[in-house]
C-alpha cells in the first residue's frame, strides 16, 4: 500500500479574502495544490498562476473539421456522385451549401469542445471526485496544500493560512 498523502485544508468564507490569501500564501513560498470554489471566482486562475486554457483552439479545430467535411460532402454528392439539375440551376454552386456547412461547423465545434473539456478535466459519470471538504459546492472556498510538496512545516503553513483569513484549517489524508 502506498503511503498516505497528507493535506492541509484551509476554509475561506469570502472570495475577496480568498483572492488576496492566495497571492500572499504563494508569495511566502507555499505551494498550493488546488482551490475549490462554489462558483467561478474571477482572477483566481491568474492568482494561482495557471496558464490560459487552450480549449478555444480545440473548438476551432473541430469547427474547421466540420466546415471541410460538410462542404466537401455536399460538393461531392450533388456535384459529382449524382449531379442533379433542379430548377435549371447549376448543380455545383457554393451559396446553397452554406447553411448546412454553417450548422455542421457549429455542431462539431460545440460537441468537440465540450468533449475535450470532459477529457482534459478527467470528468466521467462513474468517477467520484476527491472532495477535500464538500462544503466547497455550497458556500465555502477550500484551499488544499500538499504537505509533502512543501518544505515549510505544517504548523507554520497553518499559521500562514489563519493569518490570511482562513476560518478553519483542517488536516486530511488520502
Amino acid at each position: 500500500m502506498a503511503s498516505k498523502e497528507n493535506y492541509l485544508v484551509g476554509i475561506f468564507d469570502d472570495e475577496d479574502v480568498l483572492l488576496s490569501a492566495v497571492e500572499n500564501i504563494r508569495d511566502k513560498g507555499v505551494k498550493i495544490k488546488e482551490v475549490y470554489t462554489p462558483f467561478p471566482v474571477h482572477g483566481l486562475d491568474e492568482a494561482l498562476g495557471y496558464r490560459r486554457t487552450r480549449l478555444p483552439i480545440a473548438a476551432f479545430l473541430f469547427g474547421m473539421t466540420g466546415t471541410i467535411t460538410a462542404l466537401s460532402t455536399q460538393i461531392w454528392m450533388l456535384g459529382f456522385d449524382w449531379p442533379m439539375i433542379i430548377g435549371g440551376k447549376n448543380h455545383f454552386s457554393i451559396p446553397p451549401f452554406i447553411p448546412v456547412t454553417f450548422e455542421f461547423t457549429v455542431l462539431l465545434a460545440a460537441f468537440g469542445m465540450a468533449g475535450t473539456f470532459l477529457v482534459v478535466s478527467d470528468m466521467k459519470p462513474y468517477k467520484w471526485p476527491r472532495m477535500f471538504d464538500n462544503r466547497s459546492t455550497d458556500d465555502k472556498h477550500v484551499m488544499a496544500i500538499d504537505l509533502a510538496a512543501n518544505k515549510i512545516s505544517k504548523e507554520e503553513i497553518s499559521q500562514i493560512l489563519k493569518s490570511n483569513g482562513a476560518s478553519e484549517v483542517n488536516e486530511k489524508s488520502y
Partner: protein
Amino acid sequence: MQASSVFRESLVTGGKTVHDVSHDISCQVENKPSRLWWMAFGISLVLLTWGAYCCWMMLWHGIGMWGLNKTVGWAWDITNFVWWVGIGHAGTLISAILLLFRQRWRMSINRAAEAMTIFAVICALSFPGFHMGRLWLGFYWALPLPNAFGSLWVNFNSPLLWDVFAISTYFSVSLLFWYMGLIPDFAVIRDRAVRMGHMTRARIYNALSFGWDGAAKTWMRYESVALILAGLSTPLVLSVHTIVSFDFATSVIPGWHTTIFPPYFVAGAIFSGFAMVLTLLLVTRKVFKLEDYITIYHVELMNIIIIVTGSIVGVAYITELFIAWYGQVPAESYAFYNRVMGPYWWAYASMMTCNVISPQLFWIKKIRTNLMATFVLSIIVNIGMWFERFVIIVTSLHRDYLPSSWTMFHPTMYDIGQYTFTFGIFFTAFFLFAKFFPVINMAEVKSIVKSTSEKKSSTAH
C-alpha cells in the same frame, strides 16, 4: 471590491447568503413535491394522453386525418412547427446573447428558459416528423445516408433540408449548453445528499454531474467552454429562424416570397419566446416560491424586450403591406388585400391586435410591473404569434392561381389533438424538469449574491 449601482435594483431580494441560494433551490429537488405541483403535472398528463391518442390515430390512418386539402397543403402543422421553434428562441437569447452582453439579470432565469427551448424544439420537431407520414423513416429520408437507389442523395439546394440540419443542430447544441450549465449544480445536490446521508441520491447526482469537483482549474476551463458555446449559439439561433423563414421566402408563392422574412421571423421568435418565458416563470416562481430570485425587476426587463421586439414585428407587418402596394405586382397585391380584407380578416385582425397593439401597454410602468397583467398579456402575445404564422401560411395558400380551386381550411379533431399533444409534452417535461433539476442556476446566482443582494442590515449602497 465589488461596485454596486444605485440606479439598478437588486437581482436577488430577501438578504440571501450564498448558503441560502444552495438551500432554497436544492430543497425543491430534495423535498416531496407540493400539491400544486401534482395538480399541474396531472393536467399536463391528461393533455398528453388525449394528444397521444390523436397522434396514434393519425399514424394508423395517415395524415388524411388532418383537415388539409389540395389547395391548402400546409396549415396547422407548419403553423405549430414555426410557433414552437420561435418560442424556443428566447431561451438561447437569454443564455447566449445576454451572456455576451454581460447582462447579469439573465442569471436566475436562464436555466428555466433554456429548458423551455429544448422542450419547445422537441414539440416543433414532432410536426414535420408526423407530416412525413412514416415517422420512423424520417431520419432515413432526411439525412444524406447511402441508400439502394443509387445512392440518390438528399437535395442540398432545398431550404427544407437546411431546416433539418438547422433544427437538429439547434436542438443538440441547446441541449449541450443547458447540460453544461447544470453540471456544477448537480454537484451541489450531490454534496448536500452526502451530508444528509442519502447515498443513492448522491450517486445519481454524481453521475449526472460527471464527478464535478469545482477546482479552480476546472472552473477556468468550464468558463471558457461556456463563453465559446455562447459565441457559437448566438449566430446559430439567428440562423435557425432565418432558415425557417427560407422555407417560405425562397418559394414563389405571393405572400411568402419576401426578402423581409428572415429578420422579421427572428424578431417574432424572440417576441413570442419571451412571452412564453414569462408565462412559465410567473407560474414557476409561485409554485416553487422563488419570488426572491425571479423578482418584479426581472419581469419588467423581460417586458421591455417584449415592447422592443413587438414593435419590430409591427413595423415588419406595415412594411409588408407597403411593399405589396408599392411593388405593384398584381398577384402580390391581391395576396395582401386578401389577407387583410378576405375571408380570414378575423385572423389578421387578431394578429394585429395581439402582437402590435397589446404589447404597447407595457410602456406604462404600472402595467409592466404588474404580475397579473403581464401573465395575461404574455398569453395574448402567444395567441397573436400563433395567428401570425397561421395568417402567413393559410391566407397565402387558400386562394391560389385558379379561382376554381379556392377554398377554406377547417381543422379536424386530429389537428387540434396533435397541438394538444405538444402542449402535453411541453408541460409534462417542464414540470418533471422543475422537480428533479435545479430550476435556477445556483453557481451563477451565487457569484452575484454578494454584489447585488440587498443586505438585511445595510442602510444604503
